[in-house]
């Protein structure tokens, strides 16, 4: 299996622990990834505020590169994935695509409309197979209670994300948690907003969202939260202490990037997965794990 790898800005920026963890598990999975060195940021929905045509053109450029390589695109960020899916949905219109292609021609690129970017989470379920993933699990996360947190752009809008054709996407994270051997802590906040986009605009509201979701999961008995979105991770982890102070309570809920949780279940040590870089202490969670190689 080979993919054009689109890591996104945050996996090497504000969450530098994500990129190596994702690369590490892809290697173990036997997924061959070719990084898209020349691809730009998706615009994250911010660029689209200013100019949707511009955002769509930049994404079409990335799609055209992957088409040229004849490889499907892999993302590791809910926001990148959602913004790409939304752009691709609009680019289905041949007239619009032709307009966008006029800007790509000078670089010798043309987007023919065949890209189907997928988040690693979807790839594991739809292309790789959870049964095959299960074979690589050497340290099932038995006894660990994980609360899923998707990130808005991986669950909405459902038409652009093609949920009707891919019904497994609806509860993909819960399916993954179960395969890893952990217990799902279902909670109403799992598809809500982490508040990250308004962090510098209305910090109070942003932190209120962090506090609400992490508290709810914690109070339902979660040992940790798992997210396929590094932007959610930034807010839920880095700003959790501040959110707890604002809410006037203790929270202390470790937030795992999806590839880190998979890596732990594959037996990789926490240090290789970058867990020490988290703001919320992950050690209490790690003590819950059975040692690698122990009978299970």
């Amino acid at each position, binding site marked *: 299996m080979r993919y054009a790898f689109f890591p996104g800005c945050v996996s090497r920026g504000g969450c530098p622990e994500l990129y190596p963890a994702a690369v590490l598990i892809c290697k173990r999975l036997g997924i061959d990834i070719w990084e898209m060195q020349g691809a730009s940021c998706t*615009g994250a929905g911010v660029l689209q505020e200013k100019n949707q045509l511009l955002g769509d053109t930049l994404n079409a450029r990335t799609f055209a590169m992957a088409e040229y390589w004849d490889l499907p695109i892999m993302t590791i960020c809910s926001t990148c994935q959602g913004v790409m899916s939304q752009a691709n949905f609009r680019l289905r219109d041949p007239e619009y695509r032709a307009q966008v292609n006029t800007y790509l021609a*000078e670089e010798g690129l043309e987007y023919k409309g065949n890209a189907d970017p997928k988040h690693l989470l979807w790839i594991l379920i739809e292309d790789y197979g959870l049964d095959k993933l299960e074979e690589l699990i050497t340290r099932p996360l038995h006894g660990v209670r994980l609360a899923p947190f998707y990130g808005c752009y991986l669950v909405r*809008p459902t038409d652009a994300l093609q949920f009707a054709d891919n019904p497994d996407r609806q509860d993909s994270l819960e399916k993954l948690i179960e395969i890893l051997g952990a217990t799902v802590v279902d909670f109403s906040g799992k598809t*809500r907003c982490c508040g990250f*986009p308004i962090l510098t605009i209305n*910090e109070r509201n942003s932190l209120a*969202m962090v506090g609400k979701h992490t508290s709810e999961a914690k109070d339902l008995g979660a040992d940790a939260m798992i997210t396929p979105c590094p932007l959610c991770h930034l807010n839920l982890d880095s700003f959790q202490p501040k959110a707890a102070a604002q809410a006037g309570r203790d929270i202390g809920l470790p937030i795992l990037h999806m590839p880190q949780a998979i890596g732990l279940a594959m037996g990789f040590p926490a240090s290789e997965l970058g867990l020490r870089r988290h703001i919320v202490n992950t050690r209490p969670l790690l003590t819950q794990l059975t040692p690698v190689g122990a009978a299970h």
Partner: protein
Amino acid sequence: MKVTIRVRRQDPEVEDTAPFWQDYSLEIEDNATVLDALIKIREDMDGTLSLRCSCRSSICGSCAMRINGHAGLACKTQAAAALQEGDVIEVEPAGNMPVIKDLVVNFDLFWDKVMEVEPYLQPQGPEPEGEYVVSNESMLHLSGVTACIMCGACVSDCTVMEVDPSFLGPAALAKAYRFTADPRDGDDEGVSKDRLEQLNAPSGIWDCTRCLECVQACPKGVAPMERIMAMRDQAITAGFHNTNGARHTEAFSESVEQSGTLDELKLVPKSLGMTNIQGLLNYAPVALQALTHGKMPPLMHKKIEGIEHVRRIFEQVDETER
């Protein structure tokens, strides 16, 4: 078809006001809507169940409620498509509005916010001799927003209103766009500067977190969030640059144009304003924490391969848009 409708009920007028779940098992037609099922319950099984409904054809906007946790019109939702495990459909009152009884919520705050955006045309230029002449195109564009039936589904699921009831919210802001995008509103050029100035204030356009809940919930395709994004651009174009939101959007765009990717290290101070000492100090502890945990973005921000093409696309698209 046999279904169980699980209704979140509440009657604030009785002593024990806590909401509770009540199950109704009933036989409905295969093509019945969730509203058909609720009406059947009210007519044949339990006359105390309260709900609002009228047209049964997604025109009146009365029956917005949460179905399986997400807002929508009961009359537009096929029961067969909403079945969950055990053939159960969960029905709750719309969110972010106080419950009057069962599925009936109080819309007072909803209407207050709509009134707050002054939902009527306010032309500022001299009156034309005859009628206002506007292009077909602009009116067709507006029909996407005037399709709103004021059902409150977007408000129900708004993630910001959930933590901050002062936020104007998706319905009122979509209504505001109906006027900011109307060529008759505002000055001679159709720029609604006064309106945009108000919308630019706290609790307005910049407080939206872009979570897409309203886009997903709207039964009429109004896409309130996209209208809010369009108003952000209108506000910046009209000269309102002095908000963290506007600075954030502009700094983001500049970073992608310069390097192809996001320079997170520069984005935060640029959003807060480089001279905003208090704002910058507020972030100092978090920045320090990131530094000590090895979470700081790289100091040297690298440019992507072929950055010249990204810059050219920025220039060319910008020219076209003008």
